[in-house]
């Protein structure tokens, strides 16, 4: 069984629909002609979504996918992302949203493989949730060109769906033409046999049920099905007054299996049906030692004294009826206590107490029940889709409620953070204002422009001295002054030596300045460029500071209002959650109580029968020995007269129209 569940797990739409991508594992490297071709990572955000998906963390996966979509981070994988989103909604049990996405997507150019898978799983989830019409519509969209096992399951689902709707003839037609793997065949034959019995076509049903009842298998799941087939056929034969044929078939049921109690009861009825009351006592007495929780065991509390009565062992019959009445009394008391326990409202929390897995998956089911008094009555309930789906909803609401609690803490932290940001802003603004006020960027820019013009002028006029060192410029100025003096005294013969020296020194100086002029000019130009860059950066920063000065309160305020809005949504969802969760709890509680009430009614009916038969025995004893063997036929309905026909064998149990 577990294996079956695992193969259906929601690799679900993701793994199967996406046949995912990027050369990850060897199996992904090989292109799948039916699925999407493997390809390299195109959107990191989509890969991130898949990471959580592959970890079975569907809640995180869907959150990230929706966020990535909103932020435009999956531009290359939109269609895949949309398919995955549908699958994720399905995994979280949101079949309506999933259906909407699939219906929109599957009309596009998706491959037949993808389309089939999507419709199949959608149909399956709808079937489980009891949306039978929707399930049938989805399952009928699936073509036969798909995995054989899944196709087999699809037909089985369709047949079961028809049977649930009482459309047995259609189910018979579907199952008759069905072909699939051997293990599925057994289920098909069983269901076909059942449908035929329900249409009163026992002769045709026998061959199918008998085939399943005789199959060779070691699989525990199929062994259980085999038992079930033998039991169904055995009781169908008993009902058709064919006790002798029923007996060997009922004896095929394993003694240690889940159906052994009913089989023992049936074998007893088969013996009784053939008038072999002493032989009937063997299985019935064995059955009577088992747990009274089993309805077959409860019935044995009546059939044992009935058989004794048929064998004219009136005293033993009376003893067993007395014992049955006492046992039923105790059981009724226990059921009442359990109903009270359930009404206290703690049933679901107790059921989920051991469920530690903090993730949401569509295939989650409660498989163990807590050690509580009411648990023993609830196995049948836990096997029903209705209860399991309701419980799953309740569990998911609990999970989401915890999720909202976590967010509420985070959102409080955001508030603190925004307050801190605002405070920091308030502290920094005066400093920033002071710096901005002290900085005349226009003046600095003008200075840079003037400086550049000056450099251009120097270059143009080849003013080599202008770029000299201070000492050089000083020397050059002195030489200029000497030159001016010499020019003012052109005929002074005493100055001829000095004139010669001046010419020489000026030549040397000019040579030196000219030699380094180009390099110095380049350096100056570089300085101008650097200055230009720094000024631009400073201007940019000044703009940013001014923008931040104006924008920060707006941004902080924007975030603050967003935080306030989400907090309000959290609170509102919390309220709705508490309301819906409470109603879900009450609903499931009512299902559990209904189940226990039904068990109570059944036991009360048995008890009434036992009392009636006991009274009849006492009546016969007080009125003298009977002229013919007594009838100990249990009387179900109070007031129904006991059947007096002494030798009529009891009619075996199964209903004609279950």
């Amino acid at each position, binding site marked *: 069984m577990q294996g*079956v569940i695992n193969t259906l797990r929601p690799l679900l739409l993701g*793994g199967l629909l996406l046949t995912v*991508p990027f050369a*990850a*594992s060897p199996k*992904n*490297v090989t292109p799948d002609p039916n699925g999407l071709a493997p390809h390299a990572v195109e959107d*990191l955000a989509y*890969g*991130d979504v*898949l*990471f959580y*998906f*592959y*970890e079975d963390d569907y809640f995180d996966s869907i*959150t990230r996918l*929706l966020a990535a979509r*909103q932020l435009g981070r999956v531009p290359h994988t939109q269609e895949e992302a949309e398919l995955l989103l549908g699958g994720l909604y399905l995994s*979280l049990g*949101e079949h309506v*949203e999933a259906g909407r996405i699939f219906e929109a997507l599957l009309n596009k150019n998706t491959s037949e493989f993808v389309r089939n898978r999507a419709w199949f799983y959608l149909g399956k989830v709808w079937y489980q*949730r009891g949306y039978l019409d929707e399930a049938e519509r989805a399952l009928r969209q699936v073509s036969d060109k798909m995995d054989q096992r899944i196709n087999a399951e699809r037909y089985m689902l369709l047949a*079961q769906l028809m049977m649930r*709707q009482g459309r047995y003839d259609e189910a018979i037609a579907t199952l008759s033409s069905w072909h699939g793997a051997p293990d599925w065949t057994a289920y098909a034959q*069983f*269901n076909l046999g*059942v*449908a035929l019995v329900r249409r009163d076509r026992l002769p045709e049903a026998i061959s199918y049920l008998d085939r399943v009842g005789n199959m060779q298998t070691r699989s525990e799941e199929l062994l259980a099905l085999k038992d*079930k087939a033998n039991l169904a056929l055995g*009781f169908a034969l008993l009902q058709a007054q064919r006790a002798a044929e029923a007996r060997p078939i009922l004896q095929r049921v394993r003694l240690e299996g*889940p159906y052994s109690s009913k089989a023992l009861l049936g074998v007893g*009825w088969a013996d009784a049906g053939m008038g072999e009351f002493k032989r009937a006592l063997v299985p019935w007495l064995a059955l009577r030692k088992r*747990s009274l929780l089993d*309805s077959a065991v409860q*019935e044995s509390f009546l059939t044992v004294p009935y058989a004794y009565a048929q064998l004219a062992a009136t005293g033993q019959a009376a003893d067993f009826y007395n014992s049955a009445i006492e046992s039923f009394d105790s059981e009724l008391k226990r059921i009442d206590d359990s109903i009270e326990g359930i009404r206290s409202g703690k049933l679901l929390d107790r059921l989920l107490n051991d469920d530690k897995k903090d993730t949401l998956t569509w295939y989650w*089911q409660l498989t163990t029940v807590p050690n509580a008094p009411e648990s023993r009555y609830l196995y*049948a*309930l836990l*096997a029903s*889709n*209705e209860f399991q789906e*309701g419980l799953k909803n309740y569990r998911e*609401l609990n999970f989401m409620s915890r*999720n*909202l609690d976590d*967010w509420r803490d985070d959102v409080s932290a*955001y508030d603190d953070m925004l307050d801190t940001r605002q405070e920091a802003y308030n502290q920094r603004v005066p400093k920033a204002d002071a710096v901005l006020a002290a900085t005349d960027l226009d003046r600095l820019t003008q200075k840079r422009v003037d400086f550049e013009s000056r450099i251009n002028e120097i270059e143009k006029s080849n003013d080599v001295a202008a770029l000299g060192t201070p000492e050089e410029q000083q020397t050059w100025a002195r030489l200029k002054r000497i030159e001016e003096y010499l020019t003012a005294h052109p005929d002074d013969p005493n100055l001829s030596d000095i004139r010669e020296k001046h010419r020489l020194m000026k030549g040397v100086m000019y040579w030196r300045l000219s030699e380094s002029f180009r390099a110095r000019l380049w350096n100056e130009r570089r300085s101008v460029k650097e200055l230009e860059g720094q000024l631009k950066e400073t201007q940019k920063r000044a703009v940013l500071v001014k923008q931040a000065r104006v924008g920060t309160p707006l941004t902080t305020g924007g*975030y603050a209002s967003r935080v306030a809005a*989400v907090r309000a949504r959290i609170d509102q969802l919390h309220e709705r959650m508490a309301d*819906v969760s409470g109603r879900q709890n009450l609903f499931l509680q009512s299902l559990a109580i209904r189940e226990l009430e*039904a068990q109570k009614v059944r036991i009360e*009916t048995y008890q009434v029968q036992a009392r009636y038969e006991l009274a009849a025995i006492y009546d016969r004893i007080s009125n003298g020995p009977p002229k013919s063997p007594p*009838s100990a036929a*249990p*009387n179900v*309905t109070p007031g129904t007269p006991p059947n007096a*026909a002494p030798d009529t064998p009891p*009619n075996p149990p*199964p209903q004609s129209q*279950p």
Partner: protein
Amino acid sequence: MNFKHRMVSLMVCGALLSPAWMAMGETPPAPATADAPAADAPAPPASGAPPAELKTLDQEVQGLKKDVVDLNKDLFVLQEQLLFPANTQVALYISMDVGTFFALDSVTVKIDNKEVKNYLYTAREADALLKGGVQQIYLGNLKVGKHELVAFFSGKGPVERDYKRGATINFDKGVGAKYLELKITDRVPKHQPEFMIKDWE
């Protein structure tokens, strides 16, 4: 007699003629003491729909769950925008391609010589990477400008030997968000894993 016994056994055996659901993986394994009738009792014919109360509740639960999912999305976006604004955001991702020559145990990431992440992988996470998942290993803030990222990968290399390798990238952080991918690939000709860092522009 017939009537009475039929009534009795009806209650016991009502389940026997219900279709076999178990194969479909819908119900939990039946306990040995399972009292089958209620579970297997056929649904009322014709309609086949779940009880109205269940359906209404189910639809309400679905609407509620969708609202919670939507709120989670909005909170996720708000959190990212608030804590990691686009102008300073830097996101590191890790991916594995094939993984024949390398089984990942841990990754250490340093940005500008400061350790920002040291992540130890569970088998489940490593498996998710192998299947094609890409993990966002780090989300943080960096100033605009030049930065250096160094990543160290530890695990089992070819022939099950301990294996540790590093990869480095120098990158420019502009005014937009920066995405970097740490890639582990198989270099088939050399039968060795290869570690690269890709700068997503």
